[in-house]
């Protein structure tokens, strides 16, 4: 029988994707008998078999995790560490091409695995895990340009983008994988150092079973530091405090500094206000005693205090008449160091304190006991106060179960809206709700106004405020409008933001890379459009957290040290 008589045997079938099968059974085979397969196999390969990739064959895609495409770096920042994951390459070339016509930079690297940074041995406890690489990080390769290479990259990417292409190889000249991103260097300098608190995450459980974020015996491990982003390390300006100090605030002109300080007998009613100098000293005479004020409030709940732009006033949240701390705050601490505290006010009013008169008084329009009014911040001209408001409620309801973790459904629900009110020399006015930052089914909080007064950047989260895993940064026009989710947001916790004095940069905190919070920068243009997050490297040890970063309108070395003599005085 002639062969052609059997051509009817040949089968033509379309490709079929059998998603649930480990093996696919049918495929397109034009004009030929079709091999089919239905069973999983038992065959053995004894040697590697790899068909080399042709030059025309598609390359595998590398995942470049940092910097993200479109990143804008501040001029002079220390060299970043590039991060990528690649299923194909075992060695890489990195090519940077420039739009200014300058010849590109070509680097070859074997790649270095991502590693955990230095550990502070004093901050190791049984309640916190030492930092660990995530699965993704463990698969990450790194490259850090040397200072000269980075300087060249910055120089030629100033104001226009450079293209960074990473190509993977498997021991030869044939590329197997590739990806590229663009980055640029801003022409806008940062022009100010960042002041921040550097804390261990060591929750403890007392003999009574009450969890504290930090044991009294370890409070001295908290540091306050100043960072010039052009320098590879931060400068510690305050450490070994015998007592706890909390939120800090600088006036917009950089001349006045305020900070919550705990006094004797766990008196949380002290607030220090001092002039900013290279060598600062906080003494008893610099303290404001909220609790002896006698006019308003029985117990200090001086929460999120803010020094006015000109340093004349301090704005803060207080419990209001006849209310105590426990009646006005939802507070739960956890032994899980990653998100070890939930803390937000459920009652409170805004009050302002005059440094000249020593008098503190409610701010009309933000003093309604039917609401909790908190997070008050000044507009740059000092004429307006932006604050968060919600219907007041008891911190805990009868029968309410304990929250076991951050964002536990058992947390007391509260969602704040942002409002604006004129300061009006302390006479206040009628609060106006800020459209875009209110009544959106989310909790809108922690507002900060840009130095040019055009924008408000605030946090959205599902419930409460502060250290929320789901917190995201949004930007809205000062007068209200459509809020935009910021490009710089990272996957995990975005908050504690602060504008640089020139308004071109914003620093914020995130737990994207580690439960030990780190700080990041983003660039803002005239339209309020921001850029992907830029990590400020080496701000602290890998097992310490950066919090409350705040730009200070001073020279990079404007503060050398802060001495606190208050505790000594109080003994």
């Amino acid at each position, binding site marked *: 029988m002639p062969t052609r008589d059997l051509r009817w045997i040949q089968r033509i079938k379309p490709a079929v*994707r059998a998603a649930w099968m480990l093996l696919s059974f049918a495929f397109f085979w034009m004009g*030929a*008998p079709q091999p089919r397969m239905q*069973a999983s196999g038992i065959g053995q390969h004894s040697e590697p*078999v790899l068909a080399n990739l042709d030059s025309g064959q598609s390359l*595998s895609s590398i995942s470049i995790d940092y910097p993200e495409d479109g990143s804008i770096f501040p001029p002079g920042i220390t060299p970043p560490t590039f991060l990528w994951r690649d299923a194909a390459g075992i060695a890489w070339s990195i090519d940077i091409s420039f739009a200014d016509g300058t010849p590109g930079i070509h680097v070859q690297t074997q790649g270095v695995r991502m590693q955990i940074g230095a550990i502070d041995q004093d901050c190791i406890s049984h309640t916190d895990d030492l930092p660990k690489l995530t699965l*993704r990080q463990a698969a990450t390769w790194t490259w850090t340009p040397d200072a000269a290479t980075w300087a060249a990259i910055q120089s030629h990417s100033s104001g226009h983008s450079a293209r960074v292409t990473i190509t993977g190889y498997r021991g030869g000249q044939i590329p197997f994988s590739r990806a590229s991103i663009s980055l640029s260097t801003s022409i806008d300098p940062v022009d100010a150092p960042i002041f921040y608190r550097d804390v261990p995450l060591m929750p403890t459980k007392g003999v009574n079973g009450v969890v504290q974020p930090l044991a009294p015996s370890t409070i001295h491990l908290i540091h306050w530091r100043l960072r010039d982003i052009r320098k590879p390390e931060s400068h510690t300006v305050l450490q070994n405090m015998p007592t706890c100090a909390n939120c800090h605030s600088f006036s917009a002109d950089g001349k006045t500094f305020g900070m919550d300080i705990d006094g004797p007998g766990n008196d949380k009613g002290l607030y220090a206000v001092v002039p900013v100098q290279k060598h600062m000293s906080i003494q008893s005479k610099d303290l404001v005693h909220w609790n002896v004020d006698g006019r308003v409030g029985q117990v200090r709940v001086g929460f999120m205090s803010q020094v006015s732009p000109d340093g004349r006033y301090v704005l803060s949240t207080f419990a209001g008449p006849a209310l105590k701390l426990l009646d006005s705050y939802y507070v739960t601490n956890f032994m899980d160091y990653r998100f070890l505290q939930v803390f937000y006010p459920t009652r409170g009013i805004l009050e302002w304190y005059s440094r000249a008169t020593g008098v503190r008084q409610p701010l009309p329009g933000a003093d309604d006991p039917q609401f909790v009014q908190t997070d008050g911040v000044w507009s740059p001209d000092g004429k307006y106060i932006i604050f968060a408001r919600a219907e007041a409620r008891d911190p805990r309801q009868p029968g309410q179960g304990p929250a076991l973790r951050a964002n536990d459904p058992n947390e007391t629900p509260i969602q704040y809206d942002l409002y604006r009110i004129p300061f009006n020399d302390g006479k206040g006015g009628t609060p106006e709700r800020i459209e875009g930052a209110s009544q959106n089914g989310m909790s809108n909080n922690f507002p900060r106004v840009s130095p040019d007064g055009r924008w408000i950047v605030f946090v959205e989260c599902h419930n409460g405020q502060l250290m929320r895993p789901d917190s995201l940064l949004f930007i809205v026009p000062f007068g209200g409008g459509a809020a935009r989710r910021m490009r710089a947001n990272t996957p*995990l916790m975005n908050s504690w933001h602060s504008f640089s004095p020139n308004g071109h940069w914003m620093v914020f905190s995130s737990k994207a890379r580690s439960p030990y919070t780190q700080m990041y920068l983003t660039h803002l243009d005239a339209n309020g459009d921001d850029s992907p997050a830029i990590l400020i490297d080496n701000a602290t040890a890998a097992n310490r957290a950066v919090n409350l970063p705040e730009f200070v309108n001073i020279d990079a070395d404007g503060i050398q040290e802060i001495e606190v003599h208050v505790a000594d005085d109080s003994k």
Partner: protein
Amino acid sequence: MDDMRNSGIFAAIRGTIRKTLKGRILMLRCASRLALLFWLTPGTLLSANSSSCVPLESMKASLLNGPTAATYSDLGVWFAGQKQYQCAADAFATSLRMEPDQKEAGNVAFMFGSSLYLSGDAKGAISAFSEAERRKLRSVKLHLMFAAAYDQLGWIGSAESEWRAALAQDWESSEALDGLSNDLIVDNDYAATIALLENPMISGQRTAEQSLNLGLAYAKMAKLEEAVKALRDGLNTSPDSLPLANELADLLVELGRSQEAITVLDLELAQHPGDPDTGFHYLQMLIGIDPGKAKEAGRRLLLAAPASWKLLYLNGVLEMQDGKLQQARDHLEKSVTLHPEFALSHDALGVVLAQLNDMRGAKEQLEKAIALGDDDAEVKDNLSRVLRVLGEAQ
């Protein structure tokens, strides 16, 4: 009973939970219960009878001289450490019988249940876990074990509740995220799968299993580019994951990006040079995309794995297509010798023999193919034509 011992036994079963889950998914995907058994380690299936439960020499004295409930609990922990799970279960059961209200009854019940689970008795395990819960044991591990046992029984709804309960206590639990996403996929709840796995809080910890499920969920929702992105990202984190590579390659073919698919499989072949399925999948895909390259690759793969009946089959068919009928015959005959239950090898061999004018042989092979369940109409057509040539047509 201290928590360390509890942790020890849990560590021993942790890997098996994963294997079991993997097995269950495989089972559901292949609609074959045997696949589950394939993925379970033999140790988890063997039920040791009491005669093989030989305790450690140093424990024998305690057992002979007035053993207490604690003695049997210690013994159970030891057996579990030896992977003698039925023996461990017996020991824990004895401990609970001797002293039902012992201080650590909840923990012992948990370990009893875990041992039962690992010895293949999921229903018994669930009873024991319920007892542990009744005795106020509160632990992520309890939820994980409950869920694994429910899954093994196919009680997906109950399993999902337990995975979620585990996640409520530990939002990073990879076991719970793997398990819950597997169940959601099985439930065809792709939106929930995506919501679960796109949670930014866990994105850095996404396992290969989770990336696979995320990719599958996107693909099922016809979001193919997102599926590719999820699978690619997962593969860059877990380069040695064959399921991820295979799924990504399939998806790329579906998107018409065949060369990318080949690249993915090329790399997987380099990662798993000894894996027969990878070689087969690679060749199978290459045949559909680049038959010329497939022939060369098929030869090289066969050189590396001359005893792979699947590669013999594919090479045979490629050679048949190329008109190299004698070579095709040799390879297909070897393939059917190595794996006679595979109908398609018989089918292809029948076609080759017919082309070689061996109509008797062709008849025999085509009939075997049909007998083995190949109900393709074309096989029957082929057979009837061969029979006609032989003059045996009805």
